[in-house]
């Protein structure tokens, strides 16, 4: 069994992160000492690595909760997990598209400004942002 400090160091996360995972019902200590200190087993180390790898693939903590629920659900199958992964890929593709649009908008602003020593009230970038017809939501 590991203390929170030991398992955090083994898994490469902070003790605060582990407490947060616990609050989000992603992990729970296997037991507690008489003094109330959390104790974790090897399964917890595997669970933390699962969470970290899933986060690396773009899954949020609530997605990970869904993945872990599927993992333990008797009637779930690989297809269900794959669907979640495909939906995550769709979300990422949407974000990429939005970022590309931002990048193009910035290109346009940068092209319109030579960046000389003119005062900022003559700056074409600030003027373009100020005069934008875009709706502010």
């Amino acid at each position, binding site marked *: 069994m590991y203390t929170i400090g030991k398992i955090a160091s083994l898994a490469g996360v902070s003790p605060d992160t582990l407490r947060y995972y616990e609050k989000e019902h992603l992990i729970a200590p296997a037991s507690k000492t008489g003094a109330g200190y959390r104790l974790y087993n090897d399964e917890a180390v595997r669970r933390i690595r699962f969470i970290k790898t899933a986060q690396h693939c773009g899954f949020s903590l609530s997605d990970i909760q869904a993945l872990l629920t599927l993992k333990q659900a008797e009637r779930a199958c690989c297809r269900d997990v794959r669907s979640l992964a495909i*939906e995550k890929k*769709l979300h990422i*593709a949407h974000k990429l*598209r939005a970022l590309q649009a931002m990048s193009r908008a910035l290109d346009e602003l940068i092209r319109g400004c030579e960046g000389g020593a003119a005062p900022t009230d003559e700056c074409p970038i600030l003027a373009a942002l100020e005069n934008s017809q875009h709706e502010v939501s």
Partner: protein
Amino acid sequence: MTVRIEVIAAPGCGKCAGAQGELRAIAASVLGEDRLIWREVSVLEELDYAVSLGVLSMPAIAVNGELKFSSLPTPEQFRTLLTTLEAG
């Protein structure tokens, strides 16, 4: 005028395949076979197209290039949409 209905889903989606037959039959009965263009879109093969439609979950249904359902509609919901389309 033809109506293009696209079902955007992941390949191998069991619930999508099951429901598609029923939805297609509804579309054919409301619009008529000759006016219906029915297409099954694999989200993996046409990811950019799915993104351009605004698809975030599956299965989704687009009508004439516009996302109408972000999840599988009930037969009633689908029929209502097509009937509205006919009226409009």
